[in-house]
């Protein structure tokens, strides 16, 4: 893909984002919405620059907790997903438990985590982990379990062991699913750490938003929200790029788009 194509590809998404901001700005001006209810984007972006010294350390903190939680869930998600994918029996036994854990609202877990680990970084990391863990497990398991029976027959008739079948076929086969789940998981991890910070923390974007809204500095709240959104998009882009890099062979595969998203 050459440079011109790239620009043409990027024009649509960027244009749409700009359109959104213009719309937001227009609504604020036309209906003369006061700043303490909904600040226009111009005001919000200005606020980011004005309050950069406050926002940046908090953003760093959130980014840190999110990444630690996310990486942990990738490691454990891969392991558990592979185990569950190999053994349908284990999957059958484990799935109610997994679904139950996933159904618990993570907001409700944060006070418990605070009780155990105190206010601050650890609950935020754990919440990010808990919320992004499930989609990875489910996708990896599905990717491994969805092997064509003929392919398994081909390998078994060559005398391949179960481990060999897993390494040669199961794991590569599940990679598109795994990377697709990463895109979902990274954004969910942000949700998790911000939730935890709004409930109980002394720093982080979530904390900043709570503090700002309690002193009616609504433009700062929106500035913080915008920063979280930007970080989320950036991380998503990195995940998407990694996916493309590792699974270029699957670009035509419908499987690559199969994701299992959950909210929190």
């Amino acid at each position, binding site marked *: 893909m050459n440079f011109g194509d790239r620009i043409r590809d990027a024009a649509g998404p960027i244009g749409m984002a700009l359109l959104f901001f213009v719309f937001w700005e227009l609504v604020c001006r036309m209906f003369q919405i006061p700043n303490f209810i909904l600040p226009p984007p111009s005001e919000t972006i200005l606020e980011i620059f004005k309050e950069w010294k406050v926002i940046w350390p908090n953003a760093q903190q959130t980014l840190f907790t999110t990444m630690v939680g996310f990486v942990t869930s990738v490691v454990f998600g891969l392991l558990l997903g592979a185990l569950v994918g190999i053994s349908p029996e284990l999957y059958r036994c484990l799935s109610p438990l997994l679904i139950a854990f996933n159904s618990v609202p993570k907001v409700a877990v944060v006070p418990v985590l605070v009780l155990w680990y105190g206010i601050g970084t650890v609950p935020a990391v754990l919440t990010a982990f808990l919320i992004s863990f499930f989609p990875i497990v489910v996708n990896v398991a599905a990717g491994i379990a969805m092997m064509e029976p003929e*392919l398994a*027959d081909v*390998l*078994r008739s060559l005398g391949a062991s179960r481990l060999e079948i897993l390494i040669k076929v199961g794991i590569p086969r599940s990679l598109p699913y795994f990377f697709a789940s990463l895109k979902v998981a990274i954004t969910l991890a942000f949700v998790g750490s911000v939730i935890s910070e709004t409930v109980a923390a002394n720093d982080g974007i979530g904390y900043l938003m709570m503090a700002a809204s309690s002193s009616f500095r609504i433009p700062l709240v929106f500035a913080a929200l915008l920063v979280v959104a930007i970080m989320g998009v950036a991380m998503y882009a990195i995940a998407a790029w990694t996916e493309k890099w590792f699974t270029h*062979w*699957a670009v035509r*595969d419908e499987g690559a788009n199969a994701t299992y998203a959950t909210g929190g």
Partner: protein
Amino acid sequence: MLNVMQKQPAQVSAPGASGDKLETRERPFIVMDDVTMTYGGRSGVVALKHFTLRVGKGEFAAIVGPSGCGKSTFLKLASGLRPPTAGGVIVGEREVAGPLKFVGMAFQNPVLLPWRTCLQNVMLPFEIVEPFKSRRRADKEIHKERAYQLLKTVGLAEAANRYPWQLSGGMQQRAALCRAIVHDPELMLLDEPFSALDAFTREELWDVLQALWTERAFTAVLVTHDLTEAVYLADTVHVLSDRPGRIIHTQHVDFPRPRNIRSRFAPEFVETVFELREKIAEARTETKK
């Protein structure tokens, strides 16, 4: 030229019949005696019943029959992927107990690995089958050359470094055939490998398969529902009944090889296919009674 054998299945399976009467090339390579296969417990589906078959070493056998008659089940038994419910399966003078390691398989769906190039797909058996596996680092170039030469004989030299999704269905199936025989298996099991292809590609691949078989002299069993395909490729065509499947007719095909498009339209060829067709019709009405 024709040698049409019209025997009852019981005679075909009779001990000692394999040598002189069946005219197999040498001693039988696959021996199945009164095999029964039931899926899903006692009340389950009976796929094969009183199934008896001999396939000689180096022979090209074809099994034809209506869909759902247990053709694929036969392949699962012959490859050792499934044990029979009753009766014995002997392949290469040994009772089959577990998946055999000298078998190559090809299916209707080529099932290539999409993250590997054509060449890497063909080299897959080298990574699994002994003695290639333990020598795969030292002999990597040799293996590569061997896989490449094979691809060349089936006309895929230029596609060697392309990914499966860049190949047409016929090319994918050629690659799948290569993967099935690259490690020189003694037995090749083919499960309707050409049924998803268009007529011209199919005829091309018949010749590809015939050439490979002539050159490498493996034992082959082709399962198909295409009678022309069966007569064109096989030395012996076995007709399977409706489920539960058993052999109801066995016919030798003695046309000289290599067979080509001309022999496929020769009167005696058409006649053979027609007779086979009649036999199946007869057998089916009999079973229905």
